[in-house]
């Protein structure tokens, strides 16, 4: 947890304290006065971390959500699930590495996991297009979800994508149609669906596996109609305004529950999920176990009606002058 790694610029005061403490801890013998100093440094580190992470700006939140050490779907598969049996391929075109699907067990409950995959090494990252799925990824997800529903398995979707891939092949194979069909079918899929934004919730690429009974996000994840850079490019005519766009778009876990878009926020360990993957995984697991238990108790018709009404209510407008 305390290992030194290059952090984000705004985290510098935290890392300065960590380095100072680790220097002291390296001493072959630690006298009592130094021990006191180490304790003091630990306290100060916790306080500063709390202060910084308690007041992240939306743009800082985006940086945390994109942090290279932030746990990805692959980490949660090993930390949250007792088992994962990957199922490949959409039976139509290929096997998208940016969206992985498979059976898994959480507290012995059998589920289907669908998750964006960003990769760790450069090789992995380019193989999965940095978490940007192609149509075959969305089609694979839908095929496996239908399979899960047939056998009464609930679905857990872990969302972490900058957006659906913008490319020639993606357009040729119907990116729009694939995303649209997923929302259409997920809205009526006869099994519980839990969606959790674990990092980046990038627009249609996120929503393509984002329709379900419980919509949750991790505390420092963001979920947005467009990337802050993209929004700045269009509305401010320059990517340099990404920070302003990030504030204007109101996409953090502080905003979205109030807008009725997200049901639950899962708190992150102090200093963000990247500071303590295990604790984050424990919290995610607790949330999933509890939600799975609750959703399983509901009759399917009721569940589907509630799912429909949840999305049906979204939107803010004036109706006869009233919001």
């Amino acid at each position: 947890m305390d290992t030194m790694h290059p952090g984000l610029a705004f985290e510098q005061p935290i890392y300065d304290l960590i380095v100072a403490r680790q220097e002291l801890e390296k001493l072959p013998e630690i006298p009592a006065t130094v021990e006191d100093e180490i304790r003091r440094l630990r306290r100060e580190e916790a306080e500063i971390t709390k202060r910084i992470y308690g007041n992240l700006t939306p743009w800082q939140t985006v940086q945390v959500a994109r942090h290279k050490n932030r746990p990805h779907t692959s980490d949660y598969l090993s930390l949250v699930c007792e088992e994962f049996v990957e199922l490949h391929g959409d039976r139509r075109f290929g096997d998208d590495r940016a969206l992985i699907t498979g059976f898994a067990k959480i507290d012995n409950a059998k589920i289907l996991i669908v998750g964006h995959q960003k990769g760790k090494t450069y090789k992995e990252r380019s193989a999965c297009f940095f978490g940007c799925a192609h149509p075959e990824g969305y089609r694979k997800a839908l095929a496996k979800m239908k399979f899960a529903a047939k056998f009464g398995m609930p679905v857990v979707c872990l969302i972490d994508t900058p957006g659906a891939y913008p490319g020639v092949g993606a357009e040729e194979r119907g990116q729009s149609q694939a995303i649209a069909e997923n929302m259409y079918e997920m809205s009526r899929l006869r099994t519980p669906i839990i969606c959790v934004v674990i990092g980046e919730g990038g627009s249609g690429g996120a929503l393509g596996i984002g329709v379900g009974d419980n919509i949750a996000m991790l505390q420092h994840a963001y979920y947005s109609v467009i990337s802050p850079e993209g929004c700045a490019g269009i509305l401010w005519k320059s990517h340099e305004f990404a920070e302003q766009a990030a504030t204007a778009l109101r996409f953090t876990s502080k905003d979205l529950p109030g807008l009725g878009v997200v049901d639950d926020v899962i708190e992150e360990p102090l200093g963000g999920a990247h500071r303590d993957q295990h604790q984050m995984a424990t919290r995610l697991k607790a949330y999933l176990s509890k939600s799975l238990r609750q959703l399983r108790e509901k009759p399917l018709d009721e569940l589907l009606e509630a799912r429909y009404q949840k999305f049906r209510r979204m939107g803010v407008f004036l109706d006869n002058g009233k919001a």
Partner: protein
Amino acid sequence: MASDQAKATKRSKRGVPEGLWQRCPGCKRVIFGKEAEKRLGVCPECGHHFYLSAKDRINQLLDSGTFTEWDAHLRPTDPLEFRDKKAYVDRLQAEQKRTGLSDAAITGSGMIRARRVAIGVTDSAFIMGSMGSVVGERLARLVERATKDDLPVIIVSGSGGGARMHEGMLSLMQMAKVSAALARHDQHGGLFISVQTNPTMGGVAASFAALGDVVFAEPEALIGFAGPRTIEATIRVELPKGFQTSEFQLEHGFVDRIVPRNKLKSEIARVIDYCGK
């Protein structure tokens, strides 16, 4: 999600040819404005389809005097207090004044060759035809009412903007909301005909516009998910000619028929008859 504007080349921007003489953006020839108007906003020389407002579209498609508007009283508001270079409230007011629309979609019911339909049209002149809460709500209500009254749903999309950035995630969620309503319509055996016109992009292309039992497209419309500029910036190659056109979508299997404007009414009527609706 909001995608780039249509490339200026070859395709018309919004802006109906007004005045006596016009230069067609398709063939660059000077044409007599009235002549294009008589042909439903199509260039008499090259067949280029000009921008058509939602109101004109409804007048063209529906039997004269049969249209009743639904949910016209809904008005957009500014839940995020969004401001870019301009405040969203001011932008809304300016767009309303300029277009005479309250938001980017008109919905209602009317007759197409004596067949009753529920119809929605998005207008690319209003903030790029983008979908915010009002567009999503009008379309969801349209679909739900059509399901209840057993009417075929026709949605003509002209939306270059996808989900409207100014309403943030509320806009993105309209994609799911309208798609879910269409899934229920489908479940009840309802017919949905999607008509894609120039431009149909981003969150509109990736929701209701893609979900028709039958998908029609007007010729040479820009149709796709990511905007051409976004794709070029990502993959750093020049895009092939004819990329993301109606013809491209037909070739790749995402459009059933390319239907020129003057045939649209009869083609829709024919599908309704085949489906016994």
